[in-house]
């Protein structure tokens, strides 16, 4: 296969996976929406019938897996076409990031009753891929010399995986906050009946963070090692480095708050959201409007 065919095929696969993600989104939406039954006359209780829609949910999950596989091959082909790892610019960060995010979701889906997360996950992946193919797309090309390093592979791949898991933890923390708000006032809304209890959501987002915090630490260190080789200093407070530091400190604070000060529930969820948004900010802001040595995005 020539590199040109690989690049074209990769594009097609990314588009195909977007279509399947859209179907997955629909299926999950159907599962959530159609589970609601009208209230029984003369009673203010509503009963939910999930059997009717469980099938839609299962189809949604199957679509997610299929879309994941298509995207996976698309990302690999992108790498083959450029003869390097597929994360040299914003377009490639985005499609690989979306892949990691979906992988993290499928991973927890296997362990917990979390199919409902498919709704926010599929819509976020769609938005990410949509921006990638429209605004961020650049043709496949070799890397500039500064990016040619084994540490690029290590640093960026671990950063993308960490990011995927951090964002998933954020989704769960956000779900926690929303549901908690409902439960305080009117009780758990119908669409959320099947979701895990607040305690489970709370520990789940914590566990995801605890799981990838060492990986994120490693990613920052790998970045420092690479910077030492490429720019003559391992840490220079470049905007991107500064925000990586901020994210790291924010998650360290989050772990501290949980483990030593005993924060749980709402406070912890807010802190988790804050830490996650520093990661997102770094990704979006610094790549697009930032200055400094890390702006390879070509925008």
């Amino acid at each position: 296969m020539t590199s040109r065919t690989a690049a074209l095929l990769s594009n097609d696969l990314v588009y195909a996976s977007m279509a399947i993600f859209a179907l997955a989104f629909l299926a999950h939406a159907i599962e959530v929406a159609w589970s609601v039954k009208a209230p029984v006359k003369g009673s203010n209780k509503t009963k939910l019938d999930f059997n009717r829609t469980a099938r839609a949910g299962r189809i949604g999950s199957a679509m997610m897996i299929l879309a994941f596989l298509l995207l996976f091959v698309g990302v690999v082909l992108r790498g083959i076409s450029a003869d390097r790892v597929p994360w040299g610019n914003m377009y490639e960060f985005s499609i690989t990031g979306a892949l990691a995010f979906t992988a993290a979701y499928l991973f927890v889906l296997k362990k917990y009753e979390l199919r409902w997360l498919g709704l926010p996950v599929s819509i976020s992946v769609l938005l990410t891929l949509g921006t990638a193919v429209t605004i961020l797309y650049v043709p496949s090309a070799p890397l500039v010399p500064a990016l040619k390093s084994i540490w690029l592979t290590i640093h960026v791949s671990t950063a993308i995986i960490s990011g995927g898991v951090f964002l998933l933890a954020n989704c769960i923390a956000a779900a926690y906050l929303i549901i908690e708000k409902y439960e305080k006032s009117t009780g758990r809304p119908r669409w959320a009946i099947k979701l895990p209890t607040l305690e489970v959501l709370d520990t789940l987002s914590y566990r995801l963070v605890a799981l990838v915090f060492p990986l994120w630490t490693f990613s920052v260190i790998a970045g420092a090692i690479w910077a030492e080789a490429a720019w003559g200093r391992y840490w220079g407070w470049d905007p991107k480095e500064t925000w990586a530091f901020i994210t790291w400190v924010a998650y360290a604070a989050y772990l501290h708050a949980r483990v030593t000060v005993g924060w749980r529930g709402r406070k912890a969820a807010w802190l988790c959201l804050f830490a996650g948004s520093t990661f997102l900010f770094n990704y979006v802001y610094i790549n697009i409007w930032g200055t400094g040595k890390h702006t390879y995005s070509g925008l």
Partner: protein
Amino acid sequence: MSTYLDSRSFLRWGWRQLTSMRTALILLLLLGVAAIPGSLFPQRTQNPMQVRQYFIDNPELAPWLDRLKLFEVFSSPWFSAIYLLLFISLIGCVLPRSIDHAKNIFAKPPLTPKYLDRMEHFTEIKKVDLDLVEAYLRKKHYRIRRDSNSISAEKGYLRESGNLLFHLSLVLILIAVGVGSLFGMRGDSIINVGERFVNTPTSYDSVGFGKYQSESTLKPFSITATKFVATYDPATNAPIDYELTVKVAYPFGGTERSEVIKVNQPLSFGSTNVYLQANGYSPTVIVRDKSGKVVFDGPTTFLPQDGNLTSIGSIKVPDMSPQIGFVSSFLPTADRDEIRGGFSSYPEVLDPRLLFAVWKGDLGLNTGVPQSVYRIDTSEMERIGLKALVLNETYDFGEGSITFTGWKSWVNLQIVDDPGKGFALLGAILAILGLLISLFTRQRRVWIKQGRKTQVAGLAKNGIPGLEEEIAALIKGVSNDK
């Protein structure tokens, strides 16, 4: 006396506050927030030009921001205060815990609590033989305290060890950063291919030493640039690879060996690294005066302006009277359009052109005001000619002539000595190791007590899951009715 006691108890109170968990959390969050302005405002150490531009664009605001040290956040007193407090708190917290932990390693688990039914995972089972329980727990690597009618067992001390290792490694990293900035140096030197760089202070175009590092500690090496190859992608003009071949002598005058420096591949002399940072072209010219005597012969470093290495520079000839200066640009692959005039359309030298304006008068070299080597102050000068030369072409400007004879590549060598970086790396590795140990080890206790029935209970630190299954397995493992 009483005030003495008061101030002492106040100090003790203050110390307890500083080393408390809540303070650690607040300081951590503060550290994160305090770093934010460092990314929003241009920083002097990274981007002095942008800082100057900020002062020009915001003449009212900038001095105020400067007073708050917002252009040098990471060396500002308030940022330093936060991280120093954090690390004092860290040491104050971790040292006592390390001592406790070291004692605990050799101690037995704590006594079995009196009322087990208040603990988590409490169950009562049919009476079992404590010897059997002890044997079972030993096989599972619990440490055990056996009393007459109870067993207290604990597992997972490694968690605390990992946690302490992690925190202590952070201190090591901080020390390493300090060592690097106090005992290190960093400098730049531009040399043309064919020239030799000798590592002495005068060879540098710019150099900065840490507080405790001085010129005398520079490592005695010399580097001769023998060949520089830049490869570009013909489709996009983007650089693909830079490779600098050098001959190295270490110490001075020793036998020379051949080495290659690339962008991600510095050359090392102990803790000193030599990096290939930038490159460009130095056009060479011969300037003759009216009598035909050569007054200038050689390369002049030009500064690249874009990806295709359109370069600008100035050739100064002070040895003519009146003095002559050429405000000039070099195009490796010449091209023209209406808007930009002459520019380069490819970074390699395919069709070189030297464009210049000739100025006659006082170059201002003796005024004592430092001058850029790339520019000429033409305020005291008169323009007498304008020309674009192809290779080996000569132009007569009345006062003399100039011949464009060729070009050389120049490279910018960055030389950095950071004696702390090895410790920083060690600290980073230990920190990750400690983190992994502490986050993935589960610390838990199990108690068994004989009464009318056998009571079993457990406690998992931080409510880590999995203890329930473990206790169930224990009960199953020691019950007689298997």
